[in-house]
């Protein structure tokens, strides 16, 4: 088990190096002069040059690259061109918001998705099943930001129940989290329904029921446990794509998380920040994939890693 984890972590290193190199190149391929963007249109060429020097952008590309990788090895993400403060600190101050949003959304998605999926599976081919199946495919077909705008119109403009923007009130999280969750709810419900159906048809479930075990218990204890594997994979995969969805959701709701920070940083050509954030996304993605695989082993003891 431990060797497996270590091996996976070792494989992650070249991937991260690749991501780092990829984002470095991507950032430099974007047209535009970061120094001019920071200095603004009214600045003199001398000031622009001064800023370019401070950012190290007057260095040859390979020097910039070596510097970036060198810092990275020392876990130093550099200084944000836009904010002038360390990238790591900047990101750290935004992470709690995105994590709060993502975790809330996943929680909503799991609760609603799994229960809807189970409901649909045990009431297979009833109107309930039909409604749930329809709703779940609606969920994965919804344009995220359109949904966000519609919710704002409904809940913030029409009835003034919930805030439309920001993160300053505890109720602020409701609309963005729900918006973000909708896609995952649909997906998780579908997967749950599918894998529950498969399990419910298995002999041992039939046996358990024939022996008179209460239906509720059969479903929750035996069936769900065995149907969990694909559900976990989906949730794991969802967490990654949720971070992507967060980019749009955070922008629609003015939520001060890392997704919006990444977008802003692209528009500001804040190379160090874009690099830092993409690396963060990559690390998260890799870590969650690993965690998902480990959870597999926990849920299904038949799976062994060695």
């Amino acid at each position, binding site marked *: 088990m431990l060797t497996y984890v270590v091996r996976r972590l070792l494989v992650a290193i*070249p*991937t991260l190096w*690749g*991501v780092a190199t*990829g*984002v470095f190149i*991507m950032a430099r*391929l*974007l*047209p535009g002069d970061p120094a001019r963007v920071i200095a603004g249109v009214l600045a003199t060429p001398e000031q622009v040059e001064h800023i370019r020097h401070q950012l190290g952008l007057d260095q040859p590309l390979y020097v910039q690259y070596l510097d970036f990788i060198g810092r990275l090895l020392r876990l130093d993400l550099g200084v944000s061109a836009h904010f002038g403060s360390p990238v790591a600190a900047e990101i750290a101050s935004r992470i709690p918001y995105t994590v709060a949003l993502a975790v809330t959304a996943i929680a909503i998605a799991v609760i609603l998705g799994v229960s809807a999926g189970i409901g649909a599976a045990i009431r297979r081919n009833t109107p309930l099943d039909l409604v749930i*199946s329809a709703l779940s*495919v*609606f969920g*994965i*077909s*919804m*344009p*995220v*930001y*359109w949904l966000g*705008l*519609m919710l704002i*119109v409904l809940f913030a*403009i029409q009835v003034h129940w919930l805030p439309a923007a920001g993160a300053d009130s505890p109720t602020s999280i409701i609309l963005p989290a729900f918006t973000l969750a909708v*896609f995952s709810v649909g*997906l998780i419900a579908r*997967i749950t*329904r*599918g894998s529950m*159906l*498969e399990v419910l048809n298995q002999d041992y479930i039939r046996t358990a029921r024939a022996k008179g075990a209460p239906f509720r218990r059969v479903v929750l204890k035996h069936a769900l446990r065995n149907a969990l594997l694909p559900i976990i*994979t*989906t949730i794991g*995969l969802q967490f*990654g*794509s949720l*971070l*992507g*969805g967060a*980019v*749009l959701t955070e*922008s*629609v709701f003015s939520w001060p998380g890392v*997704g919006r920070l*990444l*977008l802003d940083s*692209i*528009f500001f050509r804040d190379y160090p920040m874009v690099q830092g954030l*993409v690396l963060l*996304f*990559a690390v998260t*993605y*890799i870590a969650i994939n690993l965690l998902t695989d480990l959870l597999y082993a926990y849920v299904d003891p038949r799976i062994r890693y060695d």
Partner: protein
Amino acid sequence: MRTSIPAFDTTELAPPAEGEIQAVHEAAWRQLLRHRSAVAGLVVLAVYALAALLGPVVFHQYNPAHQDLNAVLLPPSPHHLLGTDNYGRDELLDLVYGSRYTLSLGLLAVVIGVGVGVPLGAASGYFGGWADLLIQRLTDIMLAFPNIVLALALVAALGPGLKNVVIAVGVSSIPNFIRLVRSEALKVRQLPYVEAARALGVPSARILLRHLIPNVLAPVIVLATLQMGLAILVAAGLGFFGLGVQPPTPEWGELLGEGHNYIFRDANLVTFPGLCIFFAVLAFNLVGDGLRDVLDPRLRT
């Protein structure tokens, strides 16, 4: 957002003969037409396709690029059933014309995804070794970027507009196809008759064409259908930042992106393009699901 990729098991399949494939396709099509939700999806797509093909013929006197400063943001009236937008364009007719752009955007983006992703995935899985390692790392790297971010960076580099949005969205869908085809190729490589063919020195290209392609066709069609919906969603996301398709091209993502600046003044400009997009994506998802059920009965739920 990524859709999870369905797992397909092709290990048990024998090498299919030409006629067999034909028969399978016909059977699949008949089955699909019995699949209720898939038919619903097909109907929606048919309506859209009809709008795309006939709309511009029927409303030939309307020029979607025509802008009229004296008629901006008009409320719905018998003249303009959904009112006019901020350029004085008729919203309804724009939506009709828009089907053309949005559908072709989805289609072309997926053509890129398939065109690049399938060969790379096949090479990666079939040849293994360095090629595999390299392609796999590249895929990992691309997957580490949320696809809207990747698309946005590409559009920032290439500039907005229909063509570049297609490229950006298409490119960001490539890794999904690579992954899918690679896993299929890995399996095909281990099929006894493929191993035999290799031992006999049959050229790789021929093995890939004869054995891999037929095996991946079904899952690729399913993924491609689902990805068309996704491509439309990503393009709409770009529209939110004003970097998607540009006016006066009345692509739905563009209409939605423009409309969101007028959400208070005229919610129609947001509601209807959004609904059009929603139903298009929904239709692709329904058809994709239907295809999956039909083409891979094991996964039918």
